[in-house]
């Protein structure tokens, strides 16, 4: 099951400059493990030592913030689009 993951500029050093890569997983946690297997080190930028999402990282599945849909346990299915973005100010 391949899922498209959009990578922000700041993390493209891990993906050889690719804006978008494919990864696999039934949950977001599995997807991030798969991402890290292909692009070693990227997980450490997304997940903190206590196992949660980094405070300044937002992850969206089909444009919805995963912190409100089960966080790392958010279920994924074929064709979903995952977007990773750093947290920035608005206003």
């Amino acid at each position, binding site marked *: 099951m391949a899922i498209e993951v959009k990578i*922000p*500029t*700041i993390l493209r050093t891990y993906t050889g400059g690719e804006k978008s890569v494919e990864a696999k997983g039934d949950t977001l946690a599995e997807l991030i493990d798969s991402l890290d297997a292909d692009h070693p080190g990227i997980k450490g*930028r997304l997940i903190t030592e206590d196992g949660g999402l*980094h*405070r*300044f*990282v*937002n992850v*969206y599945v089909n*444009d*919805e*913030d995963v*912190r*409100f*849909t089960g966080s790392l346990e958010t279920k994924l299915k074929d064709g979903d689009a995952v*977007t990773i*973005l*750093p*947290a*920035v*100010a*608005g*206003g």
Partner: protein
Amino acid sequence: MTRYDSLLDALGDTPLVGLPHLSPRWEGERPVRLWAKLEDRNPTGSIKDRAALAMVQAAEAEGRLRPGCTILEPTSGNTGISLAMVAKLRGYGLVCVMPENTSIERRQLLEMYGARIIFSPAAGGSNQAVATAKELAQKYPDWVMLYQYGNAANAQAHYEGTGPELLRDLPTITHFVAGLGTTGTLMGTGRYLKEKVPDVQIVAAEPRYGDLVYGLRNIDEGFVPELYDDSVLTRRFSVTSYDALRRTRDLVEQEGIFAGISTGAILHAALSIAERVDEGERADIAFVVCDGGWKYLSTGAYTGTLQEAAERLEGQLWA
């Protein structure tokens, strides 16, 4: 009563208008209706008038602001314009730190009200404006930074104004949808509504920009406003420029409401909620029209194809 002693007294109490054409089920026993709160009807034409006046009043009450003081604020535009009007009427100077990739109308309005603008680099967006303002605050300790991202008066303005107005006008409210920037609107209105309407859903729509705006050097430069408390929200959506533009045009074409681009993003989130309401359920979804479209005409948002308009917006801050 629609007579006021001054412009500032005319702030708030904005109309709530129905969207009979865009709502999935306007009529019937179990309607799914959308309602627009027209915050462009505030004195300078945006929802930010509420927070600006409240923050100035709070700083006056605390004795931080005295006649002749200079106010400092990082802003992508609307808060600056609101503060510039309030500052002018109350006798303060204003220095705004604004990203350079904002619309020309914003600069013109700020200058018209007599504000001084210090531009921060486009790369890094509002994060950079916040960082620059914090440096200036250190350098000029007599300037008063109101700091909309962490000022409790910002959210309180919505707890006392926007929230009660919505409940008064729409006692059957089931969802509230607004933009997520400083988070003040969602935190204040959301807290009020959750206290009064137990099952109400509070939904955030945030803009998704092009790569330039997310050009941080590392993740630790990220920014989450001090006001933000995610326990207030039910769901949070990220909306692309394309979808925001598409909905901005739907709003004017189908309902006659000429709104700014961030309102399109909010409507996009409101519609995705509305489309998911079950057949047997009813819903009254209120959303915020943050400002009118006037300040965005120069961006080309309303002309040409959506794809062209979205490309023109690439790298611009539109919320």
